[in-house]
């Protein structure tokens, strides 16, 4: 016999059930929030997907840009004044000035340091970052960019290869304008995915794949302290799920769809407020001017007059979108406030069709297969039926839809007749115009018209720095587009956020959030 005692852990059925019940009950209890957590200001937001690539050269965009804005220096940031989109220098620069149409001088603020042992933020980092972008997936943002001349440790000049007025707004304020540490980039082989090689910003970034991205204070940051100590960006792919999470009090802010916006317009959740970030999207009904059925301009004009845009916006978009009068979006230079060549006038439409001599016209309308586009297409179908045009609606999946007007993808562009199309754009009118110049016929100009004046004005608009003159240029360009008869402008769908009314949000016109500019009211 030894003196050993053994302890036996026995599990009776009752004990097991009791333990299971206790664990279940614990799971059902609302989570207790202790004083330490209560003291921490936490902002809970939504991420629509995991961030895949934070490298500005190879990112997907969207929330990846949001992460860059918290952890990397930018020279400029968006500002919206009286509904107009502009720019202002960031905290990271003491000077940012457009000296002439092709030179932008900058001076970095003093005391900016990269994390790790990568030293101060230098003008050579700006040079490295921007010159590198010319060979990346986002090189299109740097077409007008030539080089950066470093004039001092913290100062330099961005040199453009041609006058390009929107460079600061389009490129420097946006994700591609992020500055990277040259030394840190060299250390990681000049590419990275979900870990910044070095940061200089108010937050440190951490990603938990499939769950969330977390931003916590950067201990090395000497700049303005953001209002929130921690930002949790929870991965919620479905917008509806995020809306419910907001209503359940688990998010402080999330983007909402037009149907929810309409619901909130009737009854806003308690303690909530909506803020429109921007309306940088334009939806239109397009017509292939080279298709035999649509070559007669009178037919196209008849269609322009027949379509009831208000009915589409009310019926398919619950009346919460901004009616469109052109492809320049609200808040941008050159936005139109009325159409010039058509109004909704069924009698006039019938008269034009009669004048064209076309009888028994049957057309095909191709639309992207989603609820709003289908509803809109049905309204167009009814509108055109009223003037004697029979429309067959062909819903398309995204793959074939985006190829149907491209000559490089086959012969289907020859069959294209009517289509509804929505493009997103940047906060400058030039971007919306570039798809309709002569060289874009068969690429993105699926209406297939050309106009030498339009092409000339497009080039002039790029180089013109006087806002008033630019406005004239873009107004004229939209007149030219509309005069072709190939467009019925429908709407600008807003990017809208619902948020707690004690939080002031900061969203770019293209809808990316900038968490460090959020304010706790």
């Amino acid at each position, binding site marked *: 016999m030894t003196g050993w005692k053994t302890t036996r852990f026995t599990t009776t059925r009752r004990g097991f059930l009791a333990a299971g019940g206790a664990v279940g009950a614990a799971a059902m209890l*609302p989570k207790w929030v202790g004083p330490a957590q209560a003291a921490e200001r936490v902002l809970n937001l939504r991420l629509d997907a995991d961030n895949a690539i934070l490298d500005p050269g190879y990112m997907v965009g969207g929330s990846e840009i949001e992460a860059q804005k918290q952890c990397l220096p930018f020279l400029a940031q968006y500002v919206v004044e009286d509904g107009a989109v502009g720019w202002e220098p960031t905290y990271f620069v003491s000077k940012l000035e457009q000296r002439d149409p092709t030179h932008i001088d900058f001076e970095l603020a003093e005391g900016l340091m990269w994390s790790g042992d990568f030293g101060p933020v230098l003008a050579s980092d700006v040079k490295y970052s921007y010159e590198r972008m010319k060979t990346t997936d986002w090189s299109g943002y740097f077409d007008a960019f030539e080089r950066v001349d470093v004039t001092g440790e913290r100062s330099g000049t961005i040199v453009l290869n041609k006058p390009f007025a929107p460079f600061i707004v389009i490129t420097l304020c946006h994700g591609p304008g992020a500055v990277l540490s040259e030394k840190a980039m060299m250390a990681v082989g000049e590419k990275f995915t979900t870990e910044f090689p070095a940061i200089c910003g108010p937050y440190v970034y951490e990603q938990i794949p499939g*769950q969330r991205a977390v931003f916590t204070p950067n201990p090395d940051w000497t700049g303005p302290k953001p209002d929130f100590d921690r930002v949790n960006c929870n991965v919620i792919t479905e917008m509806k799920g995020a809306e419910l999470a907001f209503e359940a009090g688990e998010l402080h802010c999330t983007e909402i769809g037009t149907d929810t916006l309409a619901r909130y317009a009737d009854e806003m959740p308690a303690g909530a407020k909506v803020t429109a970030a921007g309306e940088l999207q334009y939806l239109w009904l397009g017509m292939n001017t080279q298709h035999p059925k649509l070559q007669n301009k009178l037919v196209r004009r008849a269609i322009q007059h027949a379509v009831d845009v208000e009915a589409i916006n009310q019926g398919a978009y619950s009346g919460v979108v901004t009616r469109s009068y052109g492809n320049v979006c609200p808040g941008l230079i050159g936005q139109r406030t009325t159409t010039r060549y058509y109004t909704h006038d069924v009698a006039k439409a019938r008269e034009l069709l009669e004048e064209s001599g076309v009888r028994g016209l049957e057309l095909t309308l191709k639309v992207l297969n989603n609820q709003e586009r289908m509803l809109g297409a049905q309204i167009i179908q009814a509108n055109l039926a009223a003037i004697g045009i029979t429309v067959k609606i062909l819903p398309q999946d*995204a793959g074939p839809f985006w190829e149907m007007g491209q000559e490089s993808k086959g012969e289907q562009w020859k069959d294209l007749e009517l289509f509804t199309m929505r493009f997103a754009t940047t906060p400058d009118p030039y971007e919306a115009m570039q798809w309709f110049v002569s060289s874009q016929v068969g690429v993105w100009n699926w209406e297939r018209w050309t106009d030498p004046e339009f092409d000339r004005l497009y080039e002039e608009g790029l180089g013109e720095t006087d806002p008033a003159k630019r406005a004239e240029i873009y107004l004229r360009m939209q007149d030219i587009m509309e005069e072709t008869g190939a467009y019925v402008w429908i709407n600008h769908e807003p990017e809208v956020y619902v948020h707690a009314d004690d939080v002031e949000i900061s969203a770019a016109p293209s809808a990316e959030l900038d968490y460090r500019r959020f304010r706790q009211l």
Partner: protein
Amino acid sequence: MLSYILKRLGLSLAVVVAVVLVLFSLLHLIPGDPATVALGPRATPEAVQRYAEKMHLDKPVVMQFLIYVKNAALGDLGVDVFSNRSVAQIAIDRMGFTVALVSVSLAWAVLLGVPLGCLAAVRPNSWIDRLAAVLSVGTIAIPSFVVSIWALLLFSLELRWLPAMGAGEPGDPLDQLHHLALPALAVGLGWVGYLARMVRASMLEVMGEPYIRAAHAFGLPPRRVVYGYALRVAILPTVTLIGMGFSGLLSGAVFAEIIFARPGIGKLIFDSVMNRNFPVVQGAVLLTTALYIVITLISDLVVAWLDPRVRETL
């Protein structure tokens, strides 16, 4: 037993090859150019070319298939075209969340469903039996996504007792359990009904057996007869059902994962389909298939281990 296992593994291999073939054809059956479909309409030609090279789309289709099979056999399921992360790693990471959800769902369904079935069987045609029948059929009839939405609206939106989304704070098991409660309720509810019906039917059959009558005749306490003798035999078909249910729920939990924004293999597949991230779709489905096969095999082996009659037939 060994020959049975080998035979089953051989059949499983054939299933895996068939699944790989279907998955592989997915990429080529979707209308439009795969690279453009995946990267979006305005992808640069350079990005499209890089994608094509990465996915071996520049090679003949047969060669693409062989490369995929070879890599898959070596555990290389490719890389996520957007993040460059290993698909195998992504899928394995997410599988843990789904296994946790399915385990908890089935656990509470067993804890409730099996006693409910027993109770109904020992008092056939009583009010308890009828009530159990109504509850069972009711829970089976309501789809899990309806339960999910209902539970979300009631417990999260109205009562605010339980969280509406996510998997909880990493490293905080209580918080994770807290986040698991609603999805597990939604996923497991239908199984309460299934198990109760299955156990009731099996129990009724077993309770009529001579050895049960003999046990009663020897004066053994009814509880011992029911739980010690009848249930031990009656539970065998339920074990098979649980094994199949566990496997089916690996992908069936997708609704709960989407509605409650929980990471998981089902949601990963759904999101990847929506983003046309084909390598991840292929890899995640393949992993789910492999796990399905393994779990079904284990459940068959457990039944064989529990029941000598089955063991003898192997």
